């Protein structure tokens, strides 16, 4: 499987996952953090999933207990985390070390 093209948007998504590797994210949460529209976010998630960097799975919860429907969540695979880290470092280097940080998303949405 060929690695996905590392655009700035892809880098933003990867950065979110890398910031907290153990945390699973769901689509709307990522939309809220990045400010991406659904039509932009889901192709990226699909690309990363196909490349094996992200793993998508159905949440294992009881909807009646959680009082919300089950979500589909994404998490970095171990190999994905490793490659993503390298790729981001390379991109960061190419952009002069500061460009990517400028687009690092904040926790409450938008780009910091």
């Amino acid at each position, binding site marked *: 499987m060929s690695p996905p093209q590392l655009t700035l948007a892809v880098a933003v998504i990867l950065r979110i996952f890398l910031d907290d590797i153990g945390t699973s994210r*769901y689509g709307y949460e990522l939309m809220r953090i990045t400010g991406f529209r*659904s039509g932009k976010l889901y192709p990226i998630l699909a690309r990363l999933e196909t490349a094996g960097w992200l793993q998508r799975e159905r949440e294992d919860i009881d909807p009646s207990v959680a009082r919300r429907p089950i*979500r589909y969540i994404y998490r970095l695979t171990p190999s994905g985390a490793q490659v993503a880290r390298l790729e981001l470092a390379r991109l960061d280097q190419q952009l002069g070390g500061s460009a990517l940080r400028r687009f690092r998303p904040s926790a409450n949405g938008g780009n910091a």
Partner: protein
Amino acid sequence: MSGHWVIAITVFAAVVAFGDLVSEELRARLDRLPEYLIRFAVLRLPPEFRQGRRDEWLLELWGVLQERKIAAFPLTRLFHGICYATSLLLGARQVGKDLSPTAQRPLGAARRIFGSRPVRTVIGTIIGVPLGLIWMSVLMSGLVGNEILYAARSNPSEYSNIIGSTVVLIALVIASPIIHELCGLIANNRVASCTVAASVASGISTSMAVMVLLHSLNPDIELGLGVYGRVFPLLGLLVGTCIVWGSMEGRRLNAAARATGLALILGLSSVAYINIVLSDALGVPRTSQPFRWAVGATVAVISIGVIGGRILGYLSTPMGARLFGGIVGLHVVAVFAATTAGVLITRASIDPRISGILAVLILGCGTWAGIAYSTPPGPRSRLAR
């Protein structure tokens, strides 16, 4: 209080109640609009990914609407829902490509001919398809059936004509799977399929209504004219002097036109059949779901057109009303039975060759019935003149 007031108040109350119902219905439908858009977006994905993504996106939609705390504001909720769903609709094709980057879409003939430019594809489809396989194979076979009926009796009656045109409809519906396959071969895309279905439906429903209208204006025009009127442009292209209008004298179909038409039907049908066999042999996948919906829409339009045309004819044909009325019922029942059978056959994904054979059998039976049950020679009714 006078009776008029009672009526006025009752009517007013009924209108208000009805208005409430309509507004409630609209509100419920609008509320579900984002969901419909998502379901539509999912259709743009490869089939194997649809179920999972549909679940995910619909659940996310719930999240979008709930987590924003906008559940109590219908317009805001609708706005956010539509924004989310529209964006997905626009991005869904890309999601499909990203999920399945190596999957090759089957190339239809139109894609090979017109390339991947949608405008050219649509224009090419609109111009080419109605002149293509559908009209010339299924509908013109009805013309041939009618001509056989005409030739079989020196004094053909309205029965044979009506049975002839009914048989065309039945054959068309029964043959819907084979039409689907033909469309898949003409252009393996949704636009082409829908265009074909629309052209067939509009052709049939319009010509039926026109036929009855013409008959009401001029009783000398025989029933069954719609079939001729429909294919007149095609025959006119083949033979300039061909006359297919109305009365016995005017209804002289040039032998050359019939021969050429028949040759075209047989030729195109053979080519289409060979293509189907080849595509099976080569394992080329054929899309089906969109066209099934299109067939459903076609059937609905045909039914509405036929029934509307017949009712119009019944109301506006006092001279032949009794005879015509008797036939209306029979015809409507036959068409409904045929449409139901067509839908069932299409949904059951029966082999197109089997349904093709069925269509031919029905055409044959219809032709025989037309000959057997036509009015015996003798004084002709005014309707049949």
